[in-house]
């Protein structure tokens, strides 16, 4: 058997194959381990341990044999190396943590393990999740499966690449400013960033704590339902995780129940399932900088949604442009403090030679952190400094509230969901002029706003454009919902995926 995931391309199919014993979890795990080796040049995985993976697979097989399996039992997944794991090393793709192993599992890791998922290991990413091309990794860049010369996006670049390359059926990612949605878009997979507080941050290495949220990447909205339902839930170890969502307990089963209810609603009208759904299209998402191929693909998707009965409403999110400076003040400010703990004292990289304590800390950090991380720590330290705090940090927080208010105004007055592009262009080449290290930041314009507002959003494939190398590269459609609307959002996406096949295209076979 070669590459089971080509034969069983989604969770439902693979889960049925496992339940009917056509395939064992161990066979799938071994097959995925082989695929990871064969596609090692993608540089998607940074830590693989076949023994650990196969032990989990045998456990899953035992569970299945005992008839206690559920939809995720035995499914091959992998975690972004930002989630701490007891078994595999956890490095955040940084030399600072190159040899670090956590004594505990992240809550997300634990919940997926409890659900029976088999982990194939740890996925490359931008160092400490800072970056949007998976270029800033101590382990080297991950490549886009559609075009090896292009980035897979970032920071959860390898999470998207691994799903697109059929190395795993789904992967975890984290999204601070677009780090799930953007690589999902650039690799042609589906990914969702849930509402801030829906998923526990415990064990997820912090970048910008008030923005960070974990989310899954997979082959379809339907698969995301299965993943996110298990990943989400209140965690008493995370004071920012929500106990309740719209009056209901934040627990496993919430996402699925809301998805099922919305799906039943839509399916009740097979001709026009999305009739009554108002889609807000912010004019600021279609301005200067948006490439023609992305604009056309998104427009085509919007037409498709109208065919499904939805109504298109033009809206304005007037402070979209300002989300860039607001984000690049707040996220680095929090990062500068979050990353202070990496000082070489208790764990992590410690410089070989130093004169005194301050020198040891300084050298260890200078050697351990890559340039992008250092850049953001410096910015964050600056904007929090005495005399600058009011002008930068406080001002950014004010903007943040206004941006959130703009979204609320749209949802209360005009629309049920908001749609637009995820990225201005398709995936850019890995080798790029790096004279302006902040040029990449401008490309985050469509994704930052909802992190600042704490809203849920997702990306689903909606077409192809042409990369610099001339190869076809995927384009993503962004769907943004109101707080804790994940289930409904996924149901809307699923309606689209029932009538399109962009999400079924396979890299190398498109």
């Amino acid at each position: 058997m070669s590459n089971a995931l080509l034969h069983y391309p989604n969770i439902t199919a693979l889960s049925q194959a496992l339940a009917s014993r056509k395939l064992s979890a161990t066979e799938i795990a071994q097959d995925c381990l082989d695929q990871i080796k064969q596609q090692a040049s993608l540089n998607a995985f940074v830590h693989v341990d076949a023994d650990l993976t196969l032990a989990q697979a045998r456990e899953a097989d035992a569970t299945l044999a005992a008839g206690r399996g559920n939809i995720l039992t035995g499914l091959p997944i992998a975690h972004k190396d930002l989630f701490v794991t007891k078994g595999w090393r956890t490095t955040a793709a940084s030399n600072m943590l190159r040899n670090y192993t956590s004594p505990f599992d992240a809550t997300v890791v634990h919940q997926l393990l409890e659900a029976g998922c088999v982990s194939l290991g740890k996925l490359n990413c931008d160092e400490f999740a800072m970056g949007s091309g998976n270029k800033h990794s101590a382990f080297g860049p991950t490549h886009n499966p559609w075009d090896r010369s292009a980035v897979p996006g970032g920071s959860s670049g390898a999470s998207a690449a691994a799903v697109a390359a059929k190395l795993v059926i789904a992967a975890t990612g984290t999204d601070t400013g677009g780090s799930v949605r953007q690589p999902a878009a650039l690799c042609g997979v589906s990914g969702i960033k849930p509402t801030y507080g829906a998923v526990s941050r415990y064990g997820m290495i912090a970048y910008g704590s008030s923005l960070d949220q974990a989310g899954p990447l997979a082959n379809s909205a339907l698969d995301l339902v299965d993943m996110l339902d298990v990943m989400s839930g209140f965690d008493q170890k995370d004071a920012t995780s929500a106990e309740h969502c719209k009056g209901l307990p934040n627990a496993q089963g919430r996402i699925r129940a809301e998805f099922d209810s919305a799906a039943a609603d839509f399916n009740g009208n097979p001709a026009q399932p999305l009739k009554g759904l108002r889609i807000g299209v912010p004019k600021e998402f279609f301005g200067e900088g948006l490439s023609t191929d992305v604009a056309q693909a998104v427009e085509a998707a919007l037409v498709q949604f109208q065919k499904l009965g939805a109504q298109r409403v033009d809206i304005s999110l007037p402070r979209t442009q300002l989300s860039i400076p607001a984000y690049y003040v707040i996220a680095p400010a929090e990062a500068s403090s979050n990353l202070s703990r990496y000082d070489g004292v208790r764990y992590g990289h410690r410089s070989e030679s130093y004169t005194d304590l301050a020198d040891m800390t300084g050298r260890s950090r200078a050697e351990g952190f890559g340039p992008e991380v250092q850049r953001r720590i410096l910015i964050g330290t600056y904007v929090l400094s005495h005399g600058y705090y009011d002008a930068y940090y406080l001002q950014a927080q004010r903007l943040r509230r206004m941006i959130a208010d703009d979204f609320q105004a749209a949802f209360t007055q005009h629309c049920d969901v908001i749609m637009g592009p995820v990225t201005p262009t398709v995936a850019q080449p890995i080798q790029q002029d790096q004279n302006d290290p902040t040029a990449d930041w401008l490309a985050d314009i469509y994704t930052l706003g909802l992190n600042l507002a704490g809203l849920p959003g997702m990306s689903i494939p909606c077409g192809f454009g042409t990369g610099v190398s001339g190869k076809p590269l995927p384009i993503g459609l962004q769907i943004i919902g109101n707080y804790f609307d994940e289930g409904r959002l996924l149901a809307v996406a699923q309606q689209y995926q029932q009538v399109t096949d962009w999400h079924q295209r396979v890299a190398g076979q498109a």
Partner: protein
Amino acid sequence: MAWEIVIGLETHTQLSTQTKIFSGSSTRYGALPNTQANEVDLALPGSLPVMNKAAVELAIRFGLAVDAFIAPRSIFARKNYFYPDSPKNYQISQFEIPVVQGGTLSFFVGDQEKTVNLTRAHLEEDAGKSMHDDFVGPHGEASSGIDLNRAGTPLLEIVSEPEMRSAAEAVAYAKSLHSLVMWLGICDGNMQEGSFRIDANVSIRPVGQVEFGTRCEIKNVNSFKFLERAIQYEVRRQIELIEDGGRVVQETRLYDSERDETRSMRSKEDSHDYRYFPDPDLPPLVIESSWIESVRATMPELPAALRTRFISEFGLAPVDAAQLSSSRDLAGYFESVNAALPPDQAKLAANWIMGEVSATLNREEKDISQCPVSAASLAALLTRIIDGTVSNKIARDVFAAMWAGEHQGQPDSIIQAKGLTQISDTGAITAMIDAVLAENAAIVAEYRSGKQKAFNSLVGQIMKAAKGKANPQQVNDLLKAKLDS
């Protein structure tokens, strides 16, 4: 020039919770290094703080006791600075909006009552400890070690306004605060173990000047005695500096108790920029009024209220009332003794507890909770003074025997066994007076010539003849009658 001293105190009070302020680790003192530090205390990647409600409750308790405003919504901030005993390299503390705001503390300085306004009291986490001495590294080399057992222990930092005007006032404030936090059960008050740590902000200004002088913060003061000495030293230093034409530089100074001096630790110029900002890991601390009320319901009678009651109910002098209400145990002891005596005898009980009992406890370095003479036994002894069985003086001997545990500490058994019963028989006393007068004709003559002192000398002789057991009042009355007749 006449100088006015200005002192404000900042007190770090370790709160008596079972577990740390943001983690489930134990706060017990004295365990092996780093055995009480989990992933949160070690600041391992991915760990997150979660507020310990017990610490908040103790802060509310303090706020109610000093009649402060309890903020319905207060904010935790990060205070960023690199130091190895601070594992996150930031301290979670309250900065702009603390949980307890304002309030007052009243206490006695000698027999003068003084009220000091509090600025605030905020919750924060303690740091770990660096161990620079005698620590051997993994390869046998001299090393510094870090013990993170203390890291994350909840602290309530209580800040006073700069309203104290002498070292004595500062010490009285500190002692009063110390007894209050122990009274409330929010802190064990152990200064040697660092449960109650005082920093003093000291400045001077010419008498009559409104503006404050430049202040120095004095750290490392771990007893009331050292607090007094450190302030006295610092005041002298500042006066001499200014009078010699210099000026005080704002700085942090460490008190060295061995050399009895303060030394510069860091000046304002090289002080940290802490880059405070709200901690995104912790939502605002919301305290509903129902929470405050439920804490209020468990509040003990406070020292100030008790003091007022001791004055109005028992007619005690304010200073005595203040001393008896300085700790819950002492006040309880007094109330127990008092309850067993007739209603008009509170003063006798107060005098005994503040006199003989306290003196003996001090001599043996014990506190009232360790007193071998129970309140009931003391009351039994005082009853024998009231009914005339023993004099106040003899009662002290009985007390000493009770303390020593003789006759199971029973005063009546001791009085009986030692034959200490007071002689109140008029005939017996008259006989003794007659004998003494007969032998001291010269003194009698002195008295009659107007020397009042001679009377006391005769009383002394009579008491000596009675081995101290004669009822002193009767001796007085009978002698006077005889001499003046």
